[in-house]
């Protein structure tokens, strides 16, 4: 019951954040919304594990927690340097001219 209410709340939150990701005026708003969406998906998968009575699905939530980060970092890298191969150093920054 509690888990069901939490799941419903998470679904509403996901819808709102997704609308921000679609509407968001700047690219950063979109990136922020997608990152937040990922966190909510982790919570949703964990909650659904309890809802269906099979909490071993947490393996996937764990994987999301690891992988969502990589996607966000790649986007930021691309925003900042317009290139994925530059090192995140002062040197790389100077070379990319930003």
């Amino acid at each position, binding site marked *: 019951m509690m888990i069901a209410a939490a799941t419903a709340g998470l679904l509403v939150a996901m819808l709102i954040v997704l609308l921000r990701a679609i509407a968001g005026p700047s690219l950063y708003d979109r990136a*922020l919304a997608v990152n937040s969406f990922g966190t909510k998906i982790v919570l949703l998968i964990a909650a659904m594990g309890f809802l269906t009575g099979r909490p071993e699905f947490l393996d996937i939530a764990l994987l999301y927690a690891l992988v969502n980060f990589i996607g966000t970092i790649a986007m930021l890298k691309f925003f900042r340097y317009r290139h994925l191969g530059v090192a995140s150093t002062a040197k790389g920054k100077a070379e990319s001219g930003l």
Partner: protein
Amino acid sequence: MSVIIDILAGAFLALGTVSVLIGSFGIWRLPDFYTRLHAAGITDTSGLALMLIGMMLLAGWTLVTVKLLFVLLLILLTSPTATHALANAAYTVGLRPLGVPEQDLPEKER
């Protein structure tokens, strides 16, 4: 005893859900990117932690609790980092906060 734990778990879950909802509404309603960062922070810290603690109470002392703890630690580690990098990138590329008077900006950007 188990009733107390159930009530506690329910309270944690409810608080967490409310935090997540507040964060989401903030992401939708607040006026510019830097203020929305704050709202996202509510989801990623208090919402996530409260909900996962509620689930840990429901699961009891099992492997599930350990996995939930790992999820919590990992997101508490990665999410602020991603937010920091996001704000850093936005500021470096030239997005300025809404409503900052011109004389408060750094010298070179006026």
